[in-house]
Every structure is written in C-alpha cells, then in structure tokens.
C-alpha cells in the first residue's frame, strides 16, 4: 500500500472547460479518503487523473515514492472500481477475476490461488461460473470489487461504486467496503456525491466545489465546523440554518430576536452569518423561557424524527429537528429556542468560516 500526493492539480479540456481548477490532496497510507461534491465539482476528474485515465494539464501526482504524471494507467499499480462495474460481458466471473492477473503474466497456479482468495473475501463462490448478465447489480459490484482486490494494488480508486444499487444493498455494500478496507489496510480513494456514504465511510472527507477543495477533514470536523458557506449548505440533511446576525452587547442577534452565544475571536464590522444545525434548535410551547415567538410553516414526519420548518420573523425560515414525541400542527404558534453551544460564524463576503 502507498500514500497518494496530489499537488496543484489543474485539468482543462480542449474545449476550454476547466474540470479541476486547483486541487491539493495528501492521502495517507491505509486511509479511506472520500471526495465528496455535487456533480461537475471535479471529483471524478481528479480520481481519473490519479488513475491515469485523464492527463492533467498541470500539477503533480505521486503514488508512494513514484511520480506518476507520465505513467500510463497500467504502470501505476492501482485498481479502480466503476459505477457501471465494467465487467467484461463475455467472461465468467472466474475469468473476469483472473483477467488482470493474466494480463500481468502471472503463473497459472498463482492466478488460481489469488482468484480463490478474492472470491473467498467477497463470498463469490457460487457465482464463479456465471457471466455478468446472470448476476444482480449487487453481485456484479462485488465481482468488480474482487477484481480490484486480486491485483493487490498499491491503492484502490472507487468511482461512485454504489450509485447504481438500491438503497438496502447500498447500505450492505457500504459496510462490506469499510470492513474490507480495514482488514486489508488498503489506501482507498472513494468518490461519491452521497453525503451519507461519505460520512459513514471516510476517515477523512474532501469536499470539492467548482474544481476546488472547500474543506478536508474527518466526518465530524466537516459536520461540526463546515469551512465555508458551501460546505455548510452541502453537508447535513436538512442542511445547516444560515442566520444573518449582528454583534450587539456581546451577543449574536439575528433578525426575529434569536440570540446566540458568539464564539471567541469574532472580527468586527463584518457582515456575518451564523450556522445553526437543525438539532441545535428547539420548538417549544409559545412563551417558553429564552424562546422567541414563531409559527410552524410546515411539518415533515419522518417517523424517527420530525423536521419543523419555522418562521420566527427572520429573513429565512429555519428548520428544526425534533424527536417524534414533540408534536405541533402546521400553522401553530410556537416558541423557537437555541439549545446548542456556540454556533459557527461565516463572513458573507468571503463565504468562509471566521470563528
């Protein structure tokens, strides 16, 4: 296994579109590193550049100690798993697995041994003599994973491998990938647009937007302290409430009367926005202590929780996550109270975290 270093990556296509503007990544040996972002943010292009399937316009990519800029994909010693599995349709599972090994020219006995090992790891025993079209989507993706495994590559690149699976299977495969990665101690770069996948899988997450890295951090860091307004709006479902605030009397005051504790080191004379997670707010009976008067605009019953959309006289309605036991009807007069700690605060003009 090896670490991966991406420096000042820039990719511009002949037609002028800039897919990756500037990306720096440093992925540790044995790390499960997730690149997360909306479509068109450059995450897949970055991954394909690491794989060698795209040649970057400028910038360096290093895998282990090797500068791989000019190496073709085959010589980078990496394996990739694709969204559409990319199993060879005319080959049985067994031969699909053996394929990359035969391409390397390994002796037959070793090929057989490694195929057996990968098949055992991914529990493919009964599927070995079937062709891809006789396999379900989940089975195909397991074969694709096994095909990546047999190579014993220095790193695994995963390009939205679970996107085509249904929800239940996706959860299973997520567990499986995480388990496998831990067991092998594999370096894995995982691209997804699904934040649940990113949060549950990643040791660290890089959030990309418009070809740039917005934030790199552990799932908790990314969730607790989004580094920019983009990250704040992107991570979390429902996302963070962004409330415009002013500093007055040592407090953050939003329109509508919501009062928040300011974080230390807040700069003065700037236009600020506080980020408040839906679970850091509470819907109360009207007139409850520390609450501001508000009105329920709409209610989403999710079973295990209720999302209230509440109008408290601020510029925007806020979303509040409540346990299913606390019930208010739509249009009810309620109170809104902040219960979390100090919120994160952003500068509106730079869109970046200030405290």
């Amino acid at each position, binding site marked *: 296994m090896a670490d991966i270093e991406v420096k000042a990556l820039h990719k511009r*296509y*002949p*037609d002028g579109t800039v897919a990756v503007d500037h990306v720096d990544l440093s992925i540790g040996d044995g790390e499960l590193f997730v690149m997360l972002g909306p479509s068109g943010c450059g995450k897949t292009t970055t991954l*394909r550049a690491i*794989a*060698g*399937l795209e040649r970057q316009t400028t910038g360096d990519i290093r895998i282990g100690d090797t500068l791989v800029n000019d190496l*073709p*994909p*085959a010589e980078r010693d*990496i*394996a*990739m798993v*694709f*969204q*559409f*599995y*990319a199993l*060879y*349709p*005319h080959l049985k599972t067994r031969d699909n697995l053996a*394929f*990359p090994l035969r*391409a*390397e020219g390994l002796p037959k006995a070793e090929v057989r041994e490694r195929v057996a090992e990968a098949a055992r790891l991914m529990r493919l025993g009964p599927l070995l003599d079937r062709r891809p079209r006789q396999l379900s989507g989940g089975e195909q993706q397991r074969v694709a994973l096994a095909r990546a495994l047999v190579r014993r590559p220095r790193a695994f690149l995963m390009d939205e491998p679970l996107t085509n699976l249904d929800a239940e299977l996706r959860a299973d495969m997520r567990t499986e990938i995480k388990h496998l990665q831990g067991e092998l101690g594999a370096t894995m770069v995982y691209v997804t647009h699904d934040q649940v996948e990113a949060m549950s899988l990643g040791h660290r997450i890089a959030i990309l937007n418009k070809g740039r890295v917005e934030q790199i951090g552990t799932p908790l860091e990314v969730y607790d302290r989004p580094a920019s307004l983009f990250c704040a709006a992107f991570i979390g479902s429902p996302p963070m409430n962004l409330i415009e605030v002013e500093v007055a009397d040592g407090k953050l005051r939003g329109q509508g009367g919501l009062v928040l504790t300011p974080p230390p080191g807040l700069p003065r004379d700037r236009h600020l926005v506080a980020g408040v997670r839906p679970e850091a707010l509470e819907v109360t009976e009207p007139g409850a202590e520390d609450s501001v008067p508000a009105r329920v605009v709409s209610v989403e019953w999710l079973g295990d929780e209720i999302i209230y959309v509440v109008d408290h006289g601020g510029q925007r309605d806020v979303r509040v996550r409540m346990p299913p036991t606390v019930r208010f009807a739509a249009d009810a007069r309620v109170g809104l109270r902040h219960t979390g700690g100090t919120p994160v605060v952003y500068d509106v003009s730079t869109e970046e975290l200030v405290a």
Partner: protein
Amino acid sequence: MAVSVDEAVSTGPARDRTPPARRFGGRGRSVLEVALLTALAVVMLFPVLWMIETSIKENRDVYAVPAEFFGFTVTMDHFKDVFVAPDGGRSDLSVAFLNSAVVAGVSTLLATVLGVPAAWAYSRFAVRAKKDQLFFILSTRFMPPVVVVIPIFLMYRQLGLIDSKLGLILIYTAFNVPFTIWMMKGFVDEVPAEYEDAAMLDGYTRLQAFWRYTLPLLVPGIAATAVFALIFSWNEFVFAIFLTSSDDVRTAPPAIAGLIGGTTTDWGLVAAASVVFALPVLVFAYLVRKHLIAGVTLGAVRR
C-alpha cells in the same frame, strides 16, 4: 428522426389502451385495414413480381397482349444471357456485376475502416469544437450528390480517375464515411467507456482496449452500418454513369440502364439482370435484419 420515434414510443401505450379492433367500431374497420394494406402491398410488390415474371418468360410472351400472368412457358434463357455472351465468353453484364461487387465491397470496407475509429474517437475523446466538426461531417450529406457531379467530373479528369474503378471507390467511400461516423458514433456511445478504462488499468494500451473490448461489442452496429453503406454503393447510379464509360469499368446500374434504348429493348434480359442485381442486397439485408432494426431504432429507447 430520433425525436419522432421517441414520441411514438412514449405516447403509444397510453393512447392504445383499447384493443385496436374495437376503437372505431370493430370488424368493419379491420376489414378496411386489411383491404387497404392488401392494395398497398399489390401496388408495391407488383413491379417486383412483374420483373420476376418477365425474367422467366420467353420473348413472345413478354410482348403478348393481353399480358399473360400464368401459363406461359418458363425459360432460363435470359438468366443465361446475363452471364454468358452470345459468342460463349463472359457477357458485359457479368463484368458489370463483378465491377459492382468490387466497387461496393471495397468502398464499404474503406468507409468502415476509416469511419469506425473516427466514430470511436468522437465518442470517447474531448475534441475541440466536436459538435461543429460532426455537423460539418454530416453537412456533406445534405446536398443531393448530383449537385457535385460536374465539379467531381472535372477534378477526376485532372487526376486521371475518370473511367476507373478506383475513382468510383473513392467517391463512394467519401459518401459513406460521414454516414458511417454518425451511425457508429451512436453505437459507440452505447458501449460504456468504463470497459476501456478497466482494460487500461489492467495493463492494455488505449488502442488495445478498444480493439479487444469495445470492438467486439460493436460488431452488430458495424454490420448494420456496413450493410447500409453497401446498399448505397451497390445502388448508386448518378456517379457511375457520369464517371465511367467503358464496359470493363462500368458497374451494374448503368450497365442495366444501357440495355434500354437503341432500336429494340430485350425486356427479358433487362428483367433478368435486375433480378440478379437485386438479389445480393436482399440476401444481405435479410441476413442482418436484426442488426438493421437495431440500426434504425437506435436512440429511440433511453436507458
């Protein structure tokens, strides 16, 4: 065209929920439908039928008034005349058929060899001004070919390509390559690029990946495209008659046309030559009919 097929596919089931026979009053309608279709079939097939009949009639039966549909003497003389000259050697028509086969075959092969890799490149790579290039390629097919016959004739005269099979092969290839590129691009688009990516990670170069993985999956598409190109080259008349004159270069369409006129026309021979001429493409189209349907309905069904 794809758009209209799309609409037909998507709106069809909703409209057609009632069985067709019942929609506007049952049997009457279906009788009318059958009658109309029969009439149409007769109109479409009669010339073909008449051609076949004429080809196996003796000359006096051909000119018989009233025409005889049945009960004439069957003869294969005309077919013999197509291939064998009166002096016992090879007839001019058989040479023309051979020329047709060579010209159509080689030009189709060339168009495929040039067009398929081009289609692959347009499908897979980010090419500068790709849309404009593709539009330009297609635009060469916008005008009727006859428009460029005179310029081509003059150019060919300069180049010494007049009255040569090579000249015909080149011009047919030039007409077939744009068509091949466009049709094949659709087929290549359908094959996920991931196959090639995976093969490249497995140790193959891009060309090897294309050759070993994408190409085999494209065979049905190539077959359909090649048949269309072949039919075009086989049937082409305008360029053939303008650019060739001698009997040993001429292809079948102008050769058959040349039988008509003069003092008398041997209709039996014309008919027999036409039957022989029509057969190869019919057989070809029949053999690859499944792929042809795939070819014309391509893009009608979204994944």
